């Protein structure tokens, strides 16, 4: 039974990830007073896209085709490292979250090059902004994880989240609260949600992630959409593991609770998206610097304790 659990966890993550954008959209629809699209909309979209024939620009080369493949592979790989309900996944080793950060970097690198391969001014614009925000998001994310290393005394993701108990929250509540806030901001920016980016706008000039993938179609676009869902799952799972430190001993109960919290994180994203306007592009770095400051404060508190 113990051997089957990681498989179940991984399978759950891979199949349930496209549900999160659905929840976000339903929450937004609720706030707007609409009925909204079905929760399973992304599954339908993926199915449809996988059966479509893509169109390629005459400017594009193999880089354009390789981008989605490398991007989704990096994220599928990253999920292998990701703990599920505070329990280890397949791979867990010292410094595994460094590998995870660089896998996200690989996905970004591939997407940006694929965008530049089209020679479109819009996609170049999106690529430029994506790289700019990463410069601020990556240090904030690293520093947050470093603070968690200091809190738990562990150096692997599974170790960190396995060592978080309700007792840790009692002792270091401000630190963990700051880190949760910091990770949530990074989640919003990395997954191109409001207030950093707007996944719904149809004006190419204001989009970041969406505009980078304007030219992708068919299975390539399906890969990109699925990769985006996995990325949202990844960041949401980190937050869920952090705010959910109780390990009841029953795997099924833990997993159920974890999935509930994941849905909660998605709902929170939807609420933020409904009540906030998108920031001006030049202000987004300041938002990420705020996340960086939260992480730094958490680390300073923890080192001072």
């Amino acid at each position, binding site marked *: 039974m113990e051997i089957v659990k990681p498989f179940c966890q991984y399978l759950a993550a891979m199949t349930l990830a496209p549900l999160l954008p659905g929840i976000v959209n339903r929450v937004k629809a609720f706030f707007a007073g609409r009925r909204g699209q079905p929760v399973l909309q992304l599954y339908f979209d993926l199915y449809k896209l996988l059966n479509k*024939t893509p*169109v*390629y*620009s*005459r*400017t594009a*080369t*193999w*880089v354009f085709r390789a981008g989605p*493949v*490398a991007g*989704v*592979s990096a994220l599928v*790989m990253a999920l292998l490292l990701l703990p599920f309900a505070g329990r280890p996944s397949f*791979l867990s*080793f*010292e*410094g595994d979250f*460094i*590998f995870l950060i*660089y*896998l996200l*970097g*690989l996905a*970004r*690198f591939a997407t*940006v*090059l694929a965008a*530049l*391969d*089209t*020679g*479109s*001014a*819009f*996609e*170049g614009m999106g*690529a*430029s902004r994506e*790289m*700019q925000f*990463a*410069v601020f*998001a*990556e*240090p904030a994310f*690293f*520093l947050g994880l*470093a603070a968690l*290393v*200091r809190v738990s*005394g562990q*150096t692997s993701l599974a170790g960190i989240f396995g060592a978080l108990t309700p007792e840790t929250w009692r002792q270091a509540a401000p630190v963990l609260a700051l880190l949760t806030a910091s990770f949530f901001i990074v989640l919003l920016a990395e997954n191109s949600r409001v207030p950093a980016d707007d996944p719904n706008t149809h004006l190419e000039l204001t989009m970041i992630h969406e505009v980078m993938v*304007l*030219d992708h179609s*068919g*299975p*390539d676009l399906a*890969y990109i959409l699925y990769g985006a869902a996995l990325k949202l799952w990844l960041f949401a799972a980190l937050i869920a593991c952090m705010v959910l430190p109780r390990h009841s001993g029953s795997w099924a109960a833990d997993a159920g609770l974890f999935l509930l919290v994941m849905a909660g994180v998605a709902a929170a994203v939807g609420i933020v998206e409904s009540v906030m306007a998108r920031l001006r592009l030049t202000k987004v*770095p300041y938002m990420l610097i705020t996340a960086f400051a939260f992480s730094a404060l958490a680390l300073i508190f923890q080192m001072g304790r």
Partner: protein
Amino acid sequence: MPLFLLSFLLLLCGAALPLLLWRRPLAAQRSAVCCAVAASAVGLVPVLRVLFTGVPASFSFPWSVPLASFSLLLDPLSALFAVPLLLLTGLAAVYGAGYLAACAGKKPLALAWAAFNLLTASMLLVFSAANAVLFLLGWELMAAASFLLVLFEHEREQARKAGFIYLAAGGTGALLLLGLFLLLGAGAPSMDFSDFRVPSGGAATAAFLLALGGFGLKAGFIPLHVWLPEAHPAAPSHVSAVMSGIMIKTGLYGIIRVLGLLKPWPEWWGWLLLGLGLVSCLGGALFALAQHELKRVLAYSSIENVGIILLALGLGVVAAACGAHQLASLAFAGALLHVFNHALFKGLLFMGAGAVLHGTGTGELEALGGLSKRMPAAAAFFMAGSAAACALPPLNGFAGEFLVYLGALRALNSPGSVALAGVLAGLALAAAGAVAAAAFTRAAGTAFLGEPRTERAAGAHAPGPLMAVPMFLLALLCLLSGLAAPLLLGPLSAAVSAGFGGYYGFAAGLEAMGPFLYISAAALCLLGLIALAAAKRRAFLGGRQPASGVTWDCGYAAPTARMQYGASSFAQPLTDFFQPLLRKLGQYPVISEYFPAKASFSTEAQAVFYNSVYTPAAVRLRDLAYRFSWLQHGRLQLYIMYIVVTLIGLLLWKL
């Protein structure tokens, strides 16, 4: 050792033969390339043997030069530097044969090839010399040979300026090193490194600072880097590859040797190294982002990577000074592994930039574009090198940085100042990595992807096999040394032992093995997943032919290549944000009418340190020197009098 000497001999032949054949440039080139490749092949055997067995080899024969002895010592640390040296120079020579072929008859090829082989020989001498005089001889030969190569295109004013700055930096560095060796050798029975007595207290500090200045001027970290972004792009591309890939490492080699000698280290040395590393890796990456010329981007990226190595050394020294020896060993191993990895991917990147220069005649990013269609292989290799430079798995750049991260994470759970050093090191790596990713996607994207921006780029031709094969081999090595990182740990720990002390090597091998096996397995798994995703994509297409069309242009009817996002636009959000540091100069159009007509826009990346620190200092120095100009008047008899007076003074002093 006989094979090692044979390698030397072959290199000296390779330096002499082209000069003898100078009337027939192509024959001269062929002889030099053959000698260089043979020397690499022959030299790699003993070097790899030392590295894998851990048993040092030495050689000595009497030499009549005062204070000097011709003694060579090849220990694992020397071997670790010599392996990328021999690999890179061998491949660069083959590449250079293709690269310079077009210059035959227009340029003194014989001289360039003689200098190239002399450069290789002198660097080999620097890495293996066991005597200070011999070391300095190698050091100066290296400076002279590379100076000749920097001036290869001396008809360009920029190359002459680069050569002059390079000469000044080299001279200053050598002067500091002379002081260092005098300090270390004073009172010692000979100038052999093994005879040096270890100074303590103030003398040790002075020696450390002299070494940091003297070797630092070669390593090129900020603020001693001003010559690097001028000189590296000025040389022919295969020489740039060698200079950036391995010649700047001679400076790091020197710093590591001096650190190994001056134990125990005070904590502040570590902080100094850490601070310099921090500034260099962040500054190097940012300046790389602002450059408009492909080779200058790569030169600044070299500064970043030297910064990363220095950062790792600093973390190690701080940790060791505070007694955290285990994590110090990880940081030291990370530094040395990055030395090796950087040589491979930076060599590859400069060769890729050379292919661009060779195919289009320009390295200006704004004039390029669309080269991926015109030179697909070179584009793929350049992008692989870029990914390695951004430390992306599964390529090799990741492995070395991962070791440093591992040290930083261990440091986080240590008490006091070590934790702070760990936080700073990890943070600098993460931030510099993100900026470097922006710089490299920008360089690769504007040069190789999209549509050609000029006629030159549209008419580019692909590099021939002589240039493509070395690039392919380097790209392959980048991938293999990333996947096989655990296999490199044995030689690496031998090198760490030789450089920093036996304990560190042992601990590094022990501590890093577990995580390295995991990242290597994870990297293989990633490759498998990519293959799987590609295969599935093909299956989803199910044999249907994708349609082709134009890039989505938002309904605009007449898109042109000039509408693409260029290099300046790509970098603008970040360079604007860091404008107080970068101080780029720009002219922006002011729009005052409803129908603005012609407008022009330009930005220029400034060499901030050169313009605002070194030039004023040089002017100050020149003004000071003018006051003593009455000593320099060009009258021969008075000069002879100076010499006579000095000699008499020395005689009296000795009496």
